[in-house]
Each structure stands twice: as structure tokens, then as C-alpha cells.
């Protein structure tokens, strides 16, 4: 009796759903506008033809930095607002506390047809937005004679930074432009290392593992290495052993190579021998605090954390510390971090205004200011000297300023994880189904874990492959 009524109600509901579904707003098709400019513009000439006079466009920039950085960005943008000849007004907004939050917000906004004008996005996130037709290729803007960058300008940018934004999944389209970058470095406790008998930071993994295990004293809560639930740590290890996460043409995930297997096996061994400690997910930046307290010898983390590590050590155990290139087998490798800024598809005029804001943020005075205040790397080579001397002048940085300077030499070894759409769930798979398993189970088959993970990852890759006709 109840079932019968239920069935009738459900059928009615289903019918309603189908009807109501038709009310969903659809994405409008784009036609070439006046003057033959498509949306988005596909050639530099089209960009040149855009006229911004009198339009007074407002550009909104979504980012994930904390409040004091928001103030810095806005002050830089205020200067842009004062000096640009087109009446463009730019405004920065904190869209979330992490890249993930910003990503979620943007996806929701895209679903409802109201994205911001520009926002920070990792390359793989940009690819995901591009898949939905929500962001645009910046190449015509960069190449535009009137509004773009000159050859000299382009050369001033660190080439590896610019390269990382050309997306293989979309035939090399530039889906973002860099305004900051950082790399994953190895933080180490220099005093402790010396006590253990090492005169310099380990260069190869074997020595590194030895040192970490020597340092470990679980009874006194001291460990050689702080393991973070971060797939990027795994990626760095794979890179340093000559492997890759994604194949160069972006067609398949390849982290189950021997490099991957060895990296994972090392992690498994270190936990089996209690040479490493797991920083729980809930203890955010726990590795930083424990490092500062002298409980951990080695940490792999972003170079943008330099000011924070300095503070932690100062308030903690006060020792000599430094950063170095992570250990490697044959050739050094360093994981290039840092999101770029992407422009969302709106109208050609607004897209151009958005591009001009990004261009401004990448200019030398801005990138110097930004790097000095946040510990990120500046994106222009000409800014390098200014930033380094600023750190050297600041007494709180001390010898770490020298290490910061060395990062620029390491850039030649930079590698990028995976700039394709759908990489975020793959990172979770690497963390939860691969790394988390080996740290808790000293006997699980490492190769099998990796093979299963790669199979899943490739499925996600296929699912997120660009649709035809976009």
C-alpha cells in the first residue's frame, strides 16, 4: 500500500525533474563580435583591435593569501588603478585559505556562470577550467603588439616559469601566467647534522637515509625525517631519481616506474626502521613546528616557507639551519611549485583588462616587492639581484639569504608535476592509497600499489580529457 503510493509519487517527481531540468541555464554560444574579434581572441591582431577607452572595466582577482598579503596586493593594484591609461580598476579578494578552497569556489562560480576575472590556479586546475571552456589561452595577449610583452620582456622572465604554463593537454596553450614561483627544497638542521658527523648535507639518497636513521631516537621523540601527507614530496623523490609523474606528451601517468618504486620502498623502509615520523593531517604545518623545536632533522617543503621556518626556529630550539637541493641519484631535480594566474572567459574587453593587470603584477617592481614580502621567487631575472640584496640586508634572515640566492642556480633542474586536468584526485590517490599504506604496512607490495594507482590515475585522465570542439 505504501509502496504503491510511493511509486506513483516518484513517477510524478521524475516527470517534474525532467521538465524542470530544461530550465537550467545553458552556456551561451560565442559568435565573433564587432570588428571580427572572437571571444576569446585567437590572434594578436584581434587583441590589438580591442578598444578599452572609456570602458572603465573592473577586474576582480581571487587569491588565497592571508590578510597581510591581501593588503600588499591591493596596494600594488591601487597603483595600477592610478597609473593605467584605460581607467581599469582592479580589486583583489581572498577567495579561500588554500588553493583547494579557491578551486572549489571557482568551480561553483563557473557552474553558475559567474567566474571572477582572474584567479590563482595550478596548471592542472587551469586545465580543468579550460576543459569547461571557462578560461582562455593567453598567447594572443602575450604576443599582441599593443598590449603584450616585447621580446626583451619575455626573455627577462625565467624561461622555465613560462614553459610550465604551456599546457600539453591543450596543444601548448598558455592557460596562465606566472606571478610567483617556489620550489621544494630540503630544510635541514645544520647543527644536528654536524653532530652526527656529516660536514655537508647528503647528496644521494643512500647517505640521506643513513643520516636520517642515525638521527632517529623514537624514545625521545626525535626523528630523521618528517613525512608529510603531500603527494609533492613523493613527486620530488621520483624526479630526483630520474623519473616522472606524467609522460612528457601528457598521455599517461608513469609514476610506477623504477624511480617511483624505489622512492616508495625507501619511505616504507624508513617507517619500518622508525627513521621517520608521520605528521598527521590535522596538524597543519606540524613539520615546521617540530623542525623549529629540533625534533626533526630533515623536511622537504616549499621555499616559500623560509620566513616561517626562520620564525619557528627562533621561537623554538634556536639552532643553525639551512636549505639545500634534495638528494638525487644521477642528476639533481627540483619540484617547481607556484600557481599561475588565469584569465576567465567573459568578454574580449574584460579579458584584455584582466591580462593587463596580470602583466602589471609581473613587472619588475611588483615582483620584487612580492618576493621580498612572501619568500616566493620573483618571476623576472632582472629582479633577482634586488630581492637577494633585500634579504641580505635583513638581519633576521642571516645566512639563509645566501641559501635563497642559491635557489636561482637550482632552477635549471626544475620539473613540473602534472599540468593536466584531473590531477588533484590523483594527488589524493597517491597520498591515501599509496603513501599512507606504506607508512603503516612494512610488508605491502610497493609495485602493486603503484600499478593500481596508475591505473586509476589514467582512468581519471581519460575522464578529464579535453572534449572535441572546444
Amino acid at each position: 500500500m505504501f509502496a504503491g503510493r510511493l511509486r506513483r509519487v516518484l513517477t510524478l517527481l521524475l516527470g517534474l525533474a525532467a521538465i524542470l531540468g530544461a530550465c537550467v541555464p545553458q552556456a551561451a554560444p560565442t559568435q565573433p563580435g564587432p570588428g571580427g574579434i572572437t571571444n576569446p581572441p585567437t590572434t594578436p591582431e584581434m587583441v590589438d583591435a580591442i578598444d578599452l577607452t572609456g570602458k572603465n572595466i573592473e577586474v576582480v582577482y581571487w587569491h588565497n593569501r592571508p590578510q597581510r598579503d591581501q593588503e600588499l596586493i591591493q596596494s600594488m593594484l591601487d597603483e595600477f588603478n592610478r597609473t593605467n591609461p584605460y581607467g581599469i580598476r582592479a580589486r583583489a579578494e581572498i577567495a579561500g585559505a588554500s588553493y583547494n578552497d579557491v578551486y572549489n569556489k571557482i568551480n561553483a562560480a563557473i557552474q553558475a556562470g559567474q567566474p571572477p576575472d582572474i584567479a590563482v590556479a595550478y596548471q592542472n586546475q587551469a586545465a580543468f577550467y579550460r576543459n569547461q571552456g571557462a578560461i582562455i589561452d593567453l598567447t594572443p595577449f602575450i604576443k599582441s603588439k599593443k598590449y603584450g610583452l616585447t621580446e626583451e620582456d619575455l626573455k627577462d622572465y625565467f624561461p622555465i616559469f613560462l614553459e610550465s604554463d604551456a599546457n600539453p593537454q591543450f596543444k601548448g596553450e598558455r592557460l596562465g601566467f606566472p606571478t610567483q614561483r617556489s620550489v621544494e627544497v630540503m630544510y635541514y638542521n645544520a647543527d644536528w647534522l654536524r653532530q652526527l658527523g656529516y660536514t655537508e648535507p647528503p647528496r644521494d639518497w643512500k647517505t640521506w637515509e643513513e643520516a636520517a636513521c642515525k638521527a632517529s631516537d623514537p624514545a625521545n621523540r626525535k626523528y630523521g625525517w618528517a613525512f608529510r601527507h603531500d603527494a609533492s614530496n613523493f613527486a620530488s623523490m621520483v624526479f630526483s631519481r630520474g623519473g616522472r609523474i606524467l609522460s612528457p606528451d601528457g598521455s599517461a601517468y608513469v609514476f610506477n616506474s623504477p624511480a617511483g618504486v624505489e622512492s616508495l620502498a625507501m619511505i616504507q623502509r624508513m617507517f619500518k626502521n622508525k627513521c621517520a615520523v608521520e605528521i598527521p593531517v590535522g596538524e597543519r604545518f606540524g613539520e615546521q613546528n617540530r623542525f623549529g623545536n629540533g625534533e626533526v632533522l630533515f623536511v622537504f617543503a616549499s621555499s616559500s616557507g623560509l620566513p616561517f621556518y626562520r620564525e619557528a626556529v627562533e621561537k623554538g630550539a634556536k639552532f643553525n639551519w639551512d636549505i639545500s637541493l634534495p638528494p638525487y641519484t644521477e642528476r639533481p631535480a627540483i619540484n617547481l611549485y607556484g600557481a599561475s594566474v588565469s584569465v576567465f572567459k567573459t568578454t574580449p574587453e574584460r579579458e584584455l583588462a584582466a591580462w593587463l593587470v596580470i602583466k602589471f603584477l609581473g613587472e619588475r617592481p611588483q615582483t620584487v616587492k612580492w618576493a621580498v614580502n612572501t619568500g616566493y621567487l620573483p618571476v623576472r631575472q632582472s629582479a633577482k639581484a634586488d630581492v637577494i640584496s633585500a634579504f641580505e640586508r635583513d638581519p633576521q634572515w642571516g645566512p639563509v639569504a645566501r641559501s635563497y640566492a642559491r635557489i636561482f642556480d637550482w632552477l635549471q633542474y626544475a620539473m613540473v608535476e602534472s599540468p593536466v586536468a584531473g590531477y588533484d584526485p590523483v594527488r589524493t590517490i597517491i597520498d591515501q592509497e599509496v603513501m599512507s599504506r606504506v607508512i603503516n604496512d612494512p610488508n605491502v607490495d610497493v609495485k602493486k600499489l603503484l600499478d593500481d594507482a596508475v591505473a586509476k590515475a589514467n582512468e581519471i585522465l581519460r575522464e578529464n580529457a579535453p572534449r572535441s570542439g572546444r
Partner: protein
Amino acid sequence: MLGRKKELAYPKKGVPGRLREVLFGYALLAPALILLAVFEFFPILYGLYISLCSWRLGCAEFIGAENYIRAFRDPQVWHALLVTATYSLMSVPVQLGLGLFFAYLLFQKVKGQELFRLIFFLPYVTSTVASAAVWTYIYNPDRGLINTVLGALGLPQPRWLAEPTGVFALVARGLGVELPAWAHGPSLALVAVFIYTTWVFVGYDITIFLAGLGNIPTELYDAARVDGAKGWALFRHVTIPLLSPTTFFLSVITVIGTFKAFNHIYIMTMGGPGTATTTASIYIFRQLYEYNRYGYSAALSFILFSAILVLTIVQNRVAGRRVVYE
């Protein structure tokens, strides 16, 4: 009553009178109904529509029941349901048991009863976001309150929220025995989360049980005592049966709550370690936000909804025979 039955002022007799009454009634209901229709019912239909699609900014392709079939074939879905069911199964007896225990104690006309009840209720009143954040630090394996105390006492320090191994396996290992995989039991991480939920909800259960206890008429106890029953027998034969409506209600609430649980698990473990605490809600959230599989997550939500519905109906049937009313 009054001597003579006077005419009631309303509802007026006759069809127009009745019609006005009905219209008035529905007018009163209108605000609530409109709000529910717009913000609960319509989104369900919309969500159903999404679940039948391969969804990207709109229904890219109508795929019918494919998302549902995929869900049934996905081993992680079953795992998530298993975790949720385990969580639920642990919660009901322990939370209700503790709730009844403390309620019974408080019922003994203890001094300071109101203060105790207030204190027990505090965790329920506190914001989940705040208390889950605090408990995350309490549970920290190396720096948290619990392990610091255990360490000072020389006791073993489990890894709580970071421990995926089953509790039975851990205990057995402590005794030198290695259990087979199927007997490992729920992960310590899940148990740790469950301890937190118990802390939050026991106060609420106590309050409800107190009300239930207060409803049992003394005459029944007197009658039973006359028949020679005492102490435990009284409890078993009078208190428990007469508490059954309360117990039933609380178990339904607890089951529904555990199936929908999300906030605290997200804050404490994000579903980890591995998938040890990935309940159905966490899994659905993941599919929605990380994988951006709108259609799939919508289908999963419907499946979860049905599961809750079925469980409630089943509980209703099962309890129907056992719950005793006056």
C-alpha cells in the same frame, strides 16, 4: 462543560465556510511549504536530474541509470557504506548505554543535578568546527594531550586518528597474537572519531533519557515491588520496557545522524588515514569537489538517502513489536 452548547464562532457552516477554513490553513502553511519546496524539494529533483546525466556545466549527455550502476560496481562505495555502518553500529549501543547510565545516576535525586546536566550538555551546545579542531590536537600522536598523559604514565601511545589498523588487531598484537584480516575490527581512527561523537552526544541522550525516566509512573514500580522484584529485576522489567519509546527514538536519531555525519570527520581526518574513516558523506563530498563528478555524486547521494530511509523503516518495523506504550 457549559450547560447549553453554543454555536462555535468558526468554522462557519456550509461549503464557503469550509473552503475559507481550508484556504486559511494552507495560507498559514504557505511560508513553510514554499520555503521547503524551493529550497529542499526542487533541489532534490534538480539533483535527481543531475544524477541521470554526465554533467558538465549542464547535462552534457543523458546517461540514465549509468551513474547508479557504476556506484553499485564501485568497491569504494561499498567500503564507504561499510565504514558508515560500522560507525553507526558502534555509536548506538555505546551512546545510548552511556546516556542511560548517567541519566539513571542523575535520576537518583543527586545534589547539583542541574549543574551536572548542564556540564554534560555543553559539548552538544558547542560548535562542531571548534570542538573538532580542539580534539584534533588532543588526539595528536606526538604532541597531543592524551598521549602526553599516557606517556607520562608509561603506557603505550596509540596513533589515534592516524592509525588505520583495526582495534581488535591492535589489542591482539599487544598480547602477541596476530589476528586474521577479517577480524581486525574497525580502525582506531574510526574509533577515535566515534569517541568524539560520543563525547558530543551523550549529554543530549542523557537529557532525553531523563525525560523518559520521569515519565514512568511510580505505581508501576510499587506494583512490581509488591510482587517481590528488586534492584536489577526492577530495572529490567519495568524501566527498560517503559523506556523503549525513548530508546527507539534515540536510536533512530543516532543512526540517521551517523549516516549524515560529515563536519567533524572532515576536520579531524578528511576521511583518512587512507580510507579508514571515509564514510558515505565524505566519499560523496570527495566525488563532488575533488573529482568534480557532479552526476556521480548526485547519484551517490540518492543512494545514501535511500539507505537512510530504508534503515529508518526497518527500525520502525523491528521496534514496532518491541516498543511498549501504555
